[in-house]
């Protein structure tokens, strides 16, 4: 618990920055959603696009204008912002500590290495949940302030879906970070890899490639529109991300237990 609290405390500034950014984004989108209802611009443009690109915009038949707008803008943003934040948290949990020399301070304490890693993983999960729920709350407050009706519960499912995705991505990043001791290199490679996976999934979706062929990619398990349309969490995708997360963190604890901590 002390290690968990300490990690949360060490990430406090980062959390405030990311929470602030997503809350501002959600409020800005909520403010601009009134214009979308009147103009319905996205829908008019999207109807002229191929079905695959409509899906990329988060437009699903049956969604109202505001729901479509929220899923296309906030959903896709959260689907990238949260995994990116998760990767940075994962890098902070291992690589940054080794790079800064603080790992010596931590490992000189009478703790098991897996304790340290699990406390940090739990801290990462909590921070991501705060950002996801914070973005949802800001969106709902913003929409209500603008007297716009939307599927508020559906938006929460969408935010939670993004949380599951980010947890999976963060855990994979944590696993990768066990082998990278240089902070700059870890940020470059892990965020770069995340960008490649995101772009790859977008491209494959645009080409109407079936999910089966995209199964290796965590972004294949995130759909911003469906949780809003179906008013529930996509449990299958959530379970895959959760299982990925557990396996990755289990492998990470094993690798970290064997890691040689050089001066």
């Amino acid at each position: 618990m002390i290690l968990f609290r300490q990690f949360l405390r060490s990430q406090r500034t980062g959390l405030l920055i990311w929470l602030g950014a997503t809350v501002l984004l959600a409020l800005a989108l909520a403010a601009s959603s009134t214009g979308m209802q009147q103009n319905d611009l996205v829908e008019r443009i999207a109807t002229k696009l191929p079905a695959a690109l409509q899906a990329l915009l988060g437009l699903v038949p049956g969604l109202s204008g505001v729901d479509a707008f929220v899923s296309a803008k906030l959903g896709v943003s959260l689907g990238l912002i949260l995994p990116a934040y998760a990767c940075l948290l994962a890098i902070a949990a291992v690589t940054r500590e080794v790079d800064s020399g603080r790992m010596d301070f931590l490992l000189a304490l009478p703790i098991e290495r897996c304790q340290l890693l699990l406390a940090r993983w739990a801290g990462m999960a909590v921070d991501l949940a705060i950002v996801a729920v914070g973005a949802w709350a800001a969106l709902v407050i913003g929409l209500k302030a603008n007297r716009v009706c939307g599927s508020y519960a559906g938006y929460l499912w969408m935010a939670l879906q993004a949380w599951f995705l980010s947890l999976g991505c963060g855990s994979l990043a944590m696993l990768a970070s066990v082998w990278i001791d240089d902070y700059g290199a870890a940020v470059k490679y892990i965020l770069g890899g995340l960008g490649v996976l995101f772009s790859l999934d977008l491209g494959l979706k645009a080409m109407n490639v079936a999910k089966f062929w995209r199964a290796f990619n965590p972004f294949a398990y995130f759909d911003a529109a469906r949780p809003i349309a179906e008013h529930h969490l996509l449990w299958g995708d959530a379970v895959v991300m959760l299982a990925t997360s557990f396996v990755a963190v289990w492998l990470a604890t094993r690798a970290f237990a064997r890691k040689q901590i050089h001066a």
Partner: protein
Amino acid sequence: MNAIELQGLGHLYRNGRGVRGVDLSVREGEIFGFLGPNGAGKTTLIRTMLGFLSPTSGSGRVLGLDIVRDSRELRASVGHLPSEPALYDFLSGYDNIEFALQVRGVRDRTRVHELADRLEVNLKQRYKTLSRGNRQKVAIIAALAHDPRLLIFDEPTTGLDPLVQDTVRAIIREEQSRGVTVFMSSHDLAEVEALSDRVGIIRDGILVAVDEVERLRQRRMKHIALQATGELPDLASLPGVRDLRRDGRRIRFTYTGDLAAILEPLLRSGLADLTVTDPPLEEVFLSFYGQNGRGQGGTCA
């Protein structure tokens, strides 16, 4: 009982460097100085003992506990000061120490305040804003605050001003008087001489000798440069003199032995100038232990 007992302990890096085959016993309540030039393997051996690095050969017991199997229990009784301490920048010195003590389950903070007073450091200040010396002080307090049975200090006085260095040395001696074992690495021969009961010397990853400090002191060499005003005795024939070079009245040589024994005939002859300097540590090692590291030194016991 020995506080540290290493048998053929080694950790080799992929490039072949590291430490190998270290056999070493450090008695309980002893201050053991661990000397060697930079890159010799001092820190690698310490990190292997603490479980930061896995041994690639041999085994070791510290405070009766296996360094691999019982690493967690072992670290509960050890105070470690790394060569370049790094704590959390966003926390104050006190909060960093508090975090470590909470993890260790220590409730008493008396020792923290007592050490902070002696070392004259403001623990309320953010670690980020502290000077190098003050950061070192905070790390020293963090290593001592839980009353460990064994102190493993890697270059403890680096970055401290001479007055504070004296305080740290006094604290180390007090710890020893309370029965604490101190394993202290340094490349400062004078510091190790002043504090330690025994000294281990490591070179190129091999523990070349372990000796009583007194023995090392007797064999220590000096560089002597002088300018004579009168007729000097035949220096080359004096015991302990080597590498003799003359440049008119200026003479340089290396001397190993009791300094008083060589100064007496020189002073009788009349001197215009005299400089006595300590050679670099590596040179002392090479001279004392020979190029192969197995020269005149003692054994690794």
